[in-house]
């Protein structure tokens, strides 16, 4: 009795301390795309919801007619088939033209959004992202900062076959890295995405950005995090890239512009002594280490 009371009290405490914002993206309530933290990710979310609701409306209408037919026109209740009903040009024109109109209504906002995603003008910071088996290298162009980012050691220990470590005890299991990508908020950041070995894909859902990293080619993408939304944003490699494809997460540490400037300065200073010659700088930047 006492035990269960204590248990309930603990449960209540947990529920009280965890804000709905934290729990909205966990467990059973994890049902939908999140709007994210950029104007673009919200536009994409709205587009997704618009099309979803259009599909729901069409679905209710079509499934409604099907269910009505299944209920009303049963042989067991004596329904007599209307065998003359084989063709009706007017109806057929209607159910061809109406979908065309709906599709056009969907295509217009989709095309507008698409044009925006490809607008790479006026970016303020460029970061080269290189996918490796299995991790990411980030190179802040013209800032003298480059580092490798891979799965954090705790997740890596827990994810070994039959490790005996409960993933629930590992903070951000499989979604944590040793060195997150640090970016400023309120800044249009351009990513130049490529790969060293096989194809990877850089994806952070909160930014609405997913772009393949292809060896030998450089893809471009951009994001602009809301100025009032610094924080940690997590994603994963989205293109099958071999054995440890499931174990190369992405973490973005979005900071205020001032904090970012301080960080990048400190980081550049820290990396400077190592970069005695450009050649060694490149070598140290591109050495992949695997987990």
């Amino acid at each position, binding site marked *: 009795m006492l035990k269960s009371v204590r248990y309930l009290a603990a449960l209540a405490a947990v529920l009280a301390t965890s804000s709905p914002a934290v729990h909205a993206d966990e467990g059973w309530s994890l049902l939908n795309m999140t709007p994210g933290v950029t104007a673009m990710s919200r536009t*994409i979310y709205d587009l997704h919801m618009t099309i979803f609701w259009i599909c729901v409306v069409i679905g209710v209408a079509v499934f409604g007619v*099907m269910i009505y037919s299944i209920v009303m026109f049963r042989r067991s209740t004596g329904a007599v088939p209307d065998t003359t009903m084989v*063709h009706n040009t007017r109806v057929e024109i209607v159910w061809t033209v109406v979908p065309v109109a709906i599709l056009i209504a969907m295509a217009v906002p989709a095309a507008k959004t698409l044009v925006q995603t490809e607008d790479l003008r006026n970016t303020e910071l460029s970061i080269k992202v290189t996918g490796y088996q299995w991790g990411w290298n980030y190179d802040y162009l013209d800032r003298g900062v480059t580092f490798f980012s891979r799965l954090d050691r705790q997740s890596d220990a827990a994810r070994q076959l039959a490790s005996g470590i409960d993933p629930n005890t590992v903070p951000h299991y499989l979604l944590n890295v040793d060195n997150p990508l640090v970016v400023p908020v309120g800044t249009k950041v351009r990513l130049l995405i490529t790969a060293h070995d096989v194809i990877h894909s850089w994806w952070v859902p909160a930014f609405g*950005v997913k772009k393949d990293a292809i060896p030998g080619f450089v893809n471009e993408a951009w994001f602009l995090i809301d100025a009032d939304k610094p924080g940690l944003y997590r994603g994963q490699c989205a293109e099958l890239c071999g054995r440890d494809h499931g174990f190369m997460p992405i973490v973005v540490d979005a900071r205020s512009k001032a904090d970012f400037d301080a960080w990048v300065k400190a980081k550049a200073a820290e990396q400077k002594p190592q970069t005695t010659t450009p050649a060694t700088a490149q070598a140290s930047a591109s050495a992949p280490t695997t987990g």
Partner: protein
Amino acid sequence: MAQNTHSHGSHGSHDSHAAHAGHAQHHDHKPHGWRRWVYATNHKDIGTMYLVFAGLMFFIGGSMAMVIRLELFKPGMQFVDPAFFNSMTTMHALVMIFGAVMPAWTGLANWMIPMQVGAPDMALPRLNNFSFWILPFAFLILLSTLFVPGGAPAGGWTMYPPLVLQGGSSFPMLIFAVHMMGASSILGAINVIVTIMNMRAPGMTLLRMPLFVWTWLITAYLLIAVMPVLAGAVTMLLTDHFFGTTFFTASGGGDPVMFQHIFWFFGHPEVYILILPAFGIVSEIIPTFARKPLFGYEAMVYATASIAFLSFIVWAHHMFTVGMPLAGQLFFMLSTMLIAIPTGVKVFNWTATLWKGSLSFEPPMLFALAFLFLFTIGGFSGLMLAIVPADYQYQDTYFVVAHFHYVLVPGAIFAIMAGVYYWLPKWTGNMYDQKLAKWHFWLSTIFVNVLFFPQHFLGLAGMPRRIPDYAVQFTDWNMVSSIGGFVFGASQLLFPYIIWKCVRGGERIGNRAWEGAHGLEWELPSPPPYHSWEQAPSDAVIARGAEH
């Protein structure tokens, strides 16, 4: 009763010259024992072999899916190495697509097309034998890769370079197996086209053909068009790996994305190869059990042809994140959205066929209705996936996994099951255990949704596909999905049991197993004679069958 139940073949024991009224049956000297199957030239025997092979592969591919769902039951790696997990996803897809669904369609085509167009057999019986017997060897090679150094192919069924080039001993075996499967499909398709074009009974005009024949005819052209493209793509992989070419290697002037373009130029028509015959079967079953002709027969034919045409100009919607130019993305978004129109026409026509019908719910109808609902759900998610900016979020997540499993499992596979339950009494002369078949239906339909519906949530919430382990917030829906998978998988064991029981015996049925059934196959005895229509059916019989 049909006026031309002329050549009864009593199933199994044909002493050939025990002929029936008026018809010499001197062709009816089939070999016995193993020779009957190895030397088979009869469309029904070959059809049976295709279907048995497809069933076997369905369970092998299904077992691989069970391994996948077991490992994904909860976070952490409990059972298999990540590399083996990747082999399972890769092999599951290859086995299900090329081993289960495609051979099942060819098996049904073999059994039904000659009977439905009024022909004695397929046009090219020896080619038919060859196209079947390639398959067991192709899959022997493919499945034996599970035991070679480096393990089975693990780069995905899509075989994207450069990853696929990292494969070990399995790599050349994979390429060779794909070549063999492609050759088998092309030969099967040639046979279907020649049979339909040349073996139709006089009076069986193209627009009198049953929709299963129509959809297969269009499918066969798709096969002939795209299988050589796949063969070319994998041959280029082979020479990249062994002979120093750099078709897909940037450092040698090649382009890894070019492989994706070529692959999906095959791959998108391929997904319609998997689904068009399903449209045909459903278009035959729904009118039978609604006791009403199919609404808009000609619209159905034209819609099928439109879908087939569009399938050639939408391929890049599988690769919106590769970094295509804006104009390319716009074109492939719009062309993909267009597919919704002929597909919508089909769904509306099926719904209109139900309207003012007199419906009964035997197992084939139940599976066809489940197809109608669940394939439409897959169609909706397909439309969502066409919207490029939204696709940036969906691409390579479980949302895509949910989408294509909705169109392939309660889509293609339910239609195959509906077809088997529809024609099994015709094939055997016995009615199967309908009560058990309804159990099979309800378990399948409920748990296929428990299995795949939560995968929409997982994908939208950010879970990538093809990962062996996941962040803990994805646990709950993965558990639900796995439980759905286990029950769905186990309930499929009912299917071979029901068929086996029916082959062994059951309530005898007449020519027309279902009172509302139309079509030439129902004018033949059950089981049908060894050579289906030795004498072409009369025009009156054809007209009665083609009541649309």
